């Protein structure tokens, strides 16, 4: 497996050869920032296009097909439309908070985005409490949603924001619980280390068998809820609250929410891939040497994106199948079902690890 850190180290050494180290780090930060923004934009475009096509296919439709071949340029057209739209200011809204809200959401998704290990040696933020950091920064998004709902001075966004607050805080527990479960298996919070372990000993979902699969399912449900996507799209609930917390946003203000929603979807998929499906680690079967060698030739980031998009497809499939839950059902699903099951699951995983029953 190709280690990307060779390149980054070579680049770092090259620069430190003739400029001071603080400047090198500065330059590297800028490059990394550009890389993140670029990747963010590309992924958002790809995801929006994917979502529209997949949703269309589920609904016996073709989906976008007018702008460009197979509608490939549709998303660009949408972005240009959004950019050219007037930004409407509400008379009684809290302007500062109203304008700030999308950036909170964007910041949350950028920060979580930075945690993801793309390839061996290709991580941006990688430190020993990576998983903890991930859970912590993903919580910032709630503030954005609450602010958006509050500052809009409108009833639908207000209801949407309140629902969102209740929902995100509840489901964050499940996410934390499932991650704890996997933590028991891995014994480390460092994301690169988690993936490295999986490359060495096999994917967590296989290694941890029953409790890992359970945790994976719970993670998918809770992750879907964290992304505010159907059947948990209550904060938006277009048939009830028109557009929920971002009803009063126009132009790029709405665009940021829209982007963040899709990026959160990807981050959810990417995290599932990292923790459960082995991240950039290829699929190895012990004993199948020929097969393993071929798998080994496929670059790690392709493995990573493949897995992440597979999870994304799963989430889309769920979204385009089920009706929306009601707020009380949503909360009872979390507190009566997911929470107890994930608590039980932690104990199960602890027992499995303790008695060495991992595969």
């Amino acid at each position: 497996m190709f280690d990307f850190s060779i390149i980054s180290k070579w680049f770092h050494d090259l620069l430190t050869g003739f400029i001071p180290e603080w400047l090198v780090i500065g330059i590297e930060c800028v490059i990394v920032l550009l890389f993140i923004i670029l990747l963010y934009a590309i992924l958002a475009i790809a995801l929006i296009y994917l979502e529209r096509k997949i949703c269309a296919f589920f609904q016996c439709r073709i989906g976008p097909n007018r702008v460009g071949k197979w509608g490939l340029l549709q998303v660009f057209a949408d972005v240009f439309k959004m950019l050219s739209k007037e930004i409407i200011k509400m008379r009684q809204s809290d302007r500062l908070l109203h304008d700030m809200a999308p950036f909170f959401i964007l910041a949350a998704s950028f920060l979580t985005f930075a945690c993801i290990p793309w390839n061996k040696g290709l991580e941006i933020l990688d430190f020993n409490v990576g998983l903890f950091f991930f859970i912590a920064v993903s919580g910032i998004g709630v503030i954005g949603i609450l602010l958006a709902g509050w500052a809009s001075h409108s009833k639908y966004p207000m209801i949407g924001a309140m629902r969102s607050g209740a929902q995100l805080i509840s489901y964050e527990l499940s996410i934390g619980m499932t991650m704890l479960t996997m933590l028991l298996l891995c014994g480390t919070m460092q994301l690169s280390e988690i993936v490295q372990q999986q490359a060495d000993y096999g994917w967590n979902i296989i290694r941890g068998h029953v409790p890992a699969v359970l945790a994976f399912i719970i993670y998918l449900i809770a992750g879907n809820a964290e992304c505010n996507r159907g059947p948990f799209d209550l904060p938006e609930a277009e048939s009830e609250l028109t557009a929920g917390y971002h009803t009063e946003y126009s132009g790029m203000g709405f665009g940021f929410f829209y982007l963040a929603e899709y990026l959160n979807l990807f981050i959810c998929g990417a995290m599932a891939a990292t923790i459960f499906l082995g991240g950039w680690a290829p699929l190895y079967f012990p004993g199948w040497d020929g097969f393993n060698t071929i798998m080994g030739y496929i670059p790690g980031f392709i493995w990573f994106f493949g897995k992440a998009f597979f999870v994304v497809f799963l989430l889309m499939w769920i979204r385009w199948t089920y009706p929306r839950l009601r707020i009380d059902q949503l909360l009872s699903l979390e507190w009566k079902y997911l929470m107890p099951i994930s608590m039980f699951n932690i104990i199960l995983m602890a027992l499995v690890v303790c008695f060495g029953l991992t595969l």
Partner: protein
Amino acid sequence: MNDKTYFGGILDAVKSLTIGLKTSIKVFFEHHETEQYPENRATLTFTDRNRFCLEMPHNEKNEHKCIACGLCQMACPNDSITVTSETVTTEDGKKKKQLVKYEYNIGQCMFCNLCVTACPQGAILFNQEFEQAVFDKSKLIKVLNHPGSKCQERPKPVVSPKPAATPATANEAPKASLSHVDTAPAPKTETADKTEPIETKKED
């Protein structure tokens, strides 16, 4: 759902959700229903019952069948037809009405087919040209008689089948009775009545 146990409920729920996923993924790979207009223009089929725009057929000598009786104008619930006529004296000294202008406002039309069924001559019919979008509202008012056209000479008013519509599909019965009843006195009585609907209809 209260009669189920906690775990039984979970099992049932998971089962029903799986059925849902199965159904949707099946349709995912099925044929898409989308019809792509305008690419499918060639394959669009219409019967002569589709009513898209009123038309007054003219023959190769630029003659139509309209005798300017105004029955269609009277039958129209929306005032979308305006028949302008003039009275001319023929060679044998009889006074005769002649069509000057047959205006039809498609923007007001409800496509109820009453004008076509009211016409004793079968002079108007609905065609199947559906692309009627225009940029200017005034273009919705169409003059149906071609410039320089005149009424087809007929020895007698006869019950003729409508052009383009097959006898089986055209609504012959009321029309036949109409033309029999109204043939002789029609032009006079209808001109007297003609102002009436315009007065009584207040709605737009």
